[in-house]
């Protein structure tokens, strides 16, 4: 067992963990933050994407101990109290989810795309940068629309305008 301390969604956390503990296990099992999902568990599907020191990573392929001293943001850390994050709101508005299993990873990846590429994203860029996230409902069309809209809304610092989902 080894001591571990990091910041998760702005709060300092400490624990004593088996070195084998993956970041995703630590988040789900120790902290009970079950919004981060385990899909393929082989670093393909992206359901487990969280931000580690501001960068999207696959938490199923990262040891918790490697995150000692780091700052981690999960899907639970995006919303501001009762108000959804603009990217979450955009997924809701554009029906960017079907079963919802991939959604936390999609949204964390989407915010990472905005962080890297700014608020004006074309479809090609979004589709290319979603390479590491798989939706087995194959609902990519609305996911891509949601990300473009959410990216814009993040730039305005407001929720996206209400639009009917197609």
């Amino acid at each position, binding site marked *: 067992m080894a001591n571990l301390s990091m910041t998760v969604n702005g709060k300092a956390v400490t624990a004593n963990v088996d*070195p084998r503990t*993956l970041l995703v296990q630590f988040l789900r099992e120790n902290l009970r933050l079950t919004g981060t999902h385990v899909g393929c568990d*082989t*670093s393909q599907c*992206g359901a487990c994407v969280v931000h580690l020191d501001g960068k999207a*990573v696959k938490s199923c*392929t990262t040891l918790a101990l*490697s995150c000692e001293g780091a700052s981690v943001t999960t899907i639970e850390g995006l919303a501001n109290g009762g108000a959804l994050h603009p990217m979450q709101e955009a997924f809701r508005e554009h029906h960017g989810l079907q079963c919802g299993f991939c959604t936390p990873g999609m949204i964390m990846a989407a915010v990472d795309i905005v962080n890297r590429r700014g608020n004006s994203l074309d479809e090609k860029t979004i589709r290319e940068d979603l390479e*590491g996230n798989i939706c087995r409902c194959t609902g990519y069309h609305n996911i891509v629309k949601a990300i473009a809209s959410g990216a814009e809304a993040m730039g305005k610092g407001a929720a996206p305008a209400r639009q009917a989902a197609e």
Partner: protein
Amino acid sequence: MYAFTYHRPATARQAASLLAKKEDAKLLAGGHTLLPTMKQRLASPGALVDLSSCADLKGIARKGRNLVIGAMTTHAEVAASPEVQEAIPALAYLASHIGDPHVRHRGTIGGSVANNDPAADYPAALLALGATVVTNKRKLPAEEFFSGLYETALDEGEIIVKVSFPVASKAGYAKFRNPASRYALVGVFVAKRGSEIAVAVTGAGEGGVFRWPEAEAVLKARFAPKSLDGLKHTAKGINGDIHADAEYRAHLIGVMAKQAVAQATGKAG
């Protein structure tokens, strides 16, 4: 995963000493090959020495005619680096096409090179550009470094510190990706340094990355995609699997080589 002890040294020197002291220790770089392998119980090191806090293994610098990249520099950092984009744009392009964005935030050049996966991208760049792998013990030219499937010239306890790339006058990389894994089904890196031409092929060879002398000869006469017209690589010694048979991969070598030259000469469409 089987149990292991975990260590996170702050310098390459400390890492080397841990590697020597701990029984059955392995180095952890970005972990995107080692951790999945351990999860499948195909590897079971007794100790992991995590290099992620070794600041002396990170960074990108232009040193005279060389571009020097620290072993723990991530693919995302190489792809986004203005130094790399200016000195060897093909290398930034290569790094930007490894895996996916999340993988590129973790995966490192040192990890990729040390693992020498026969379908990895970096080995082709190192071989074609005539790079030097600098370890904590010595300097190894790329052609001596890569010795076979997942095999390198690294000794027990040896740690890659950095990779030094001579800046080429022209370079290009093209790969045909496995759509699921994004590994190279076939990847070809071409480089022109003075009158020297190098063509290195990854993803295709039974023994890992290799050079294609016939293509180098015709490109030496004229460095243009057209020079490769009609030139075919033999299917002998080429990998075949469920994704592509040897004939198909051999054909792709020619196609990717042409695209790489087109990129290097600014004629990519």
